[in-house]
């Protein structure tokens, strides 16, 4: 199908489909994703403060929904990985990361918004940078400089393997972890949204511009795939927010751990 479309003048979606300057142009343009990010911050702030102001013993529907999300970040991730005793200083980070990423991802399939802001790499880099600084700071503060760097080595490594294993562990802590943490979220949102664009734009082109009754009939299949993939995206978007927070908790716990 893409071949047929390409020969007929269809431009398939690519990285350029994610550049939507609304005000101005160039490096200082105000883009669509900025509006999404600001809107999600305002929504999270309002909803959380409103819910926290009128907490009830018997929760209303809204309070129950907010509490469920909080429960995922706190009990399912935080308590499991970091442990209840040491969780308190990291709880705000985990919960706000989870809510922020979840809402920004969901913006990819909310009608009329339909732009996952995490498909722009810059936002993900900032989030990863926060996590990166936090887990190194926590580890250095807990164990001191020497202890922290000694702690990279897994216990039980034979002495002759140390020169091989230690550089690999250093690479893991300083390069691989932030790289994969940021790329995972970015690439999932980018690929998922591109997939949706392929089916939506392809279906639209087949229906309106192909001028062939048989090709127009196949647009139904394209739109059906678009709807199916939208539900699949919902799952992926939730899962990616969950995984980002889960790995954050894991890295923090690992930096504080006495032994590997």
């Amino acid at each position, binding site marked *: 199908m893409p071949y047929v479309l390409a020969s007929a003048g269809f431009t398939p979606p690519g990285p350029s489909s994610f550049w939507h300057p609304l005000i101005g142009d160039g490096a200082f343009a105000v883009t669509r994703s900025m509006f999404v990010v600001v809107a999600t911050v305002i929504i999270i702030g309002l909803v959380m403060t409103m819910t926290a102001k009128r907490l009830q013993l018997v929760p209303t529907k809204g309070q129950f929904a907010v509490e469920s999300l909080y429960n995922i970040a706190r009990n399912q991730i935080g308590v499991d990985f970091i442990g209840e005793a040491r969780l308190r200083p990291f709880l705000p980070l985990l919960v706000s990361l989870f809510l922020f990423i979840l809402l920004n991802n969901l913006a990819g399939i909310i009608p009329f918004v339909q732009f996952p802001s995490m498909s722009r790499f810059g936002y993900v880099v900032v989030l990863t940078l926060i996590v990166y600084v936090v887990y190194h700071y926590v580890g250095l503060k807990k164990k001191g400089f020497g202890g922290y760097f000694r702690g990279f080595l897994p216990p039980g490594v034979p002495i002759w393997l140390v020169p091989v294993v230690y550089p690999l562990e250093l690479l893991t802590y300083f390069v691989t972890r932030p790289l*994969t943490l940021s790329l995972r979220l970015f690439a999932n949102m980018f*690929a998922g949204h591109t997939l949706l664009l392929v089916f939506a734009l392809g279906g639209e082109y087949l229906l309106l511009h192909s001028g062939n009754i048989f090709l127009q009939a196949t647009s139904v299949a394209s739109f059906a795939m678009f709807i199916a993939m939208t539900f699949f995206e919902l799952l992926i978007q939730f899962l990616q927010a969950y995984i980002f927070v889960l*790995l954050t908790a894991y890295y923090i716990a690992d930096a504080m751990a006495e032994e590997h």
Partner: protein
Amino acid sequence: MDGSLNVIGYGLAAIGPAIGVGLIFAAYINGVARQPEARGLLQPIAILGFALAEALAILGFVLAFIL
């Protein structure tokens, strides 16, 4: 999307992580089937393993665009 050879390469590169993710969830399902009460314990571990295996596919995806 230009550079169709890159995309073919990415498709080949994704086979490995795909098998890995399949094995991880197969083990998770096996574990839960044998001991349903261990579900809460196994779930974060399974998702952690999934995330680590998926990282390889993600690196390939990014390289397919960059190279």
